[in-house]
């Protein structure tokens, strides 16, 4: 019979033993060595049934297929745009995937997306050597105009969104801002007034810092209503 060495949401470091025996299965952030399951990251443990995983507390964004991300145009080539995501890998947005309009051969591509433009885009494909293909065809995928972009730790994105988007819709309703969260940890905030934008930014910063606190939703609710 296998034995669990850690509790749910325990802080673990690389090389720490999480479980003994073959009854448990290693998931992301863990590996098996002989009879043991060990952590390979600094993070918090999550146990679901027989699966054990470690959610990292730091680290860069590792691109995944079908992720919606906020990217920056880094370069324009003859047949598309090079998009950067804040991690080690850049990807390609081709003409075909960029727009449903007909783009003439030799057209000036910067009139569609210029250098430094922020795009809400989706990863359609990713190869083993981390060559990424993007698309702009899909609901909500567009170029961002106005507002501001902040960077948070990518592993904390799910907490900012909340269960079925509860956290983010609360921030949106309370501040009246429009907010888009990319899986790469970039958050776009656009409001009518600068104070509203600031309030939404502060709320997201609180979530990032205290992402593993119990009753975080109540805390944010309190902050948004009373400002503390």
């Amino acid at each position, binding site marked *: 019979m296998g034995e669990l060495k850690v509790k749910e949401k325990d802080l673990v470091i690389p090389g720490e033993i999480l479980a003994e025996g073959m009854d448990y299965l290693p998931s992301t952030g863990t590996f098996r060595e002989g009879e043991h399951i060990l952590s390979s990251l600094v993070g918090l443990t999550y146990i679901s049934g027989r699966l054990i995983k470690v959610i990292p507390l*730091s680290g860069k964004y590792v691109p995944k297929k079908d992720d919606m991300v906020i990217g920056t145009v880094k370069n324009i080539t003859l047949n598309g745009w090079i998009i950067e995501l804040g991690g080690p890998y850049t990807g390609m947005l081709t003409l075909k995937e960029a727009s449903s309009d007909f783009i003439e051969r030799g057209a000036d591509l910067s009139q569609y997306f210029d250098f430094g433009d922020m795009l809400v885009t989706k990863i359609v494909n990713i190869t083993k050597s981390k060559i990424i293909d993007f698309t702009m065809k899909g609901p909500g995928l567009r170029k961002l105009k106005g507002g501001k972009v902040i960077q948070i730790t990518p592993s904390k994105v799910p907490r900012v969104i909340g269960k079925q988007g509860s956290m983010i819709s609360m921030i949106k309703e309370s501040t009246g801002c429009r907010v888009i969260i990319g899986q790469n940890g970039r958050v776009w905030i656009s409001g009518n007034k600068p104070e509203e934008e600031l309030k939404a930014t502060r709320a997201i910063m609180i979530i990032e810092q205290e992402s593993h606190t119990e009753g975080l939703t109540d805390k944010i609710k309190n902050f948004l209503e009373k400002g503390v």
Partner: protein
Amino acid sequence: MAYTKRTDGRKFDELREMEAKVGIIKSADGSAMFRVGKTIAIAAVRGPRDLYPKFKQDSQKGVLRCNYDLMSFSVTERKRPGPSRRSQEISLVTEKALLPVLELDNFPNAVVDVFITIVQADAGTRCAGINAASLALADAGIPMKDLVCAVATGIINEDKVIVDVNKEEEDLEGGLADTPMAILPRSGEVTLLQMDGEASKEEILESIKLGKRACEQIYRVQRDALKERYGGMKDAAD
């Protein structure tokens, strides 16, 4: 000369006082400081990030690049800034000491840069550097199989093995075999072993044995430093 006590009054297998701190450099992706006695090393990790020139890229896994350097005021005689023959060698052995624990398969064509800087040197700088670098890599969120602990042993009075040599002992007359080593605390695997001086086979085996024991203590310091850095988040969860 009868040798019953070390120059600074330590026992033969006693380490100097150690201190570790994680997350000291805000602009880096991961960073750490490791102090042992008067030796202070800081390490900054940047990456995984793009690697240029392109021919250095590996399409199968990520590349680790280490850079070790002494600050010019870290030693008694001013050290001329810039890379030297010595710092190049230490950069290389540090890289080889850290590589076995890193899992870079998920970062093809990318590089992880480790910058180790010695702020104050009192012997054992490469070991302090490796200890700091291993903490900084963990802080940067790079998957690792284990931490790496490093310590230097020496031989004085012709047959007595001492652990964690300081500068005063290193400069003693009469052939001290300075043996820096890096050990993976869980498996006891040795990833770095150098030796400068003369020693018999038995003495080397004894050195490794004592080094392994010392690394257990170093591991505890490293573990506590990492948990302290992220502990605030954990306390909040309780």
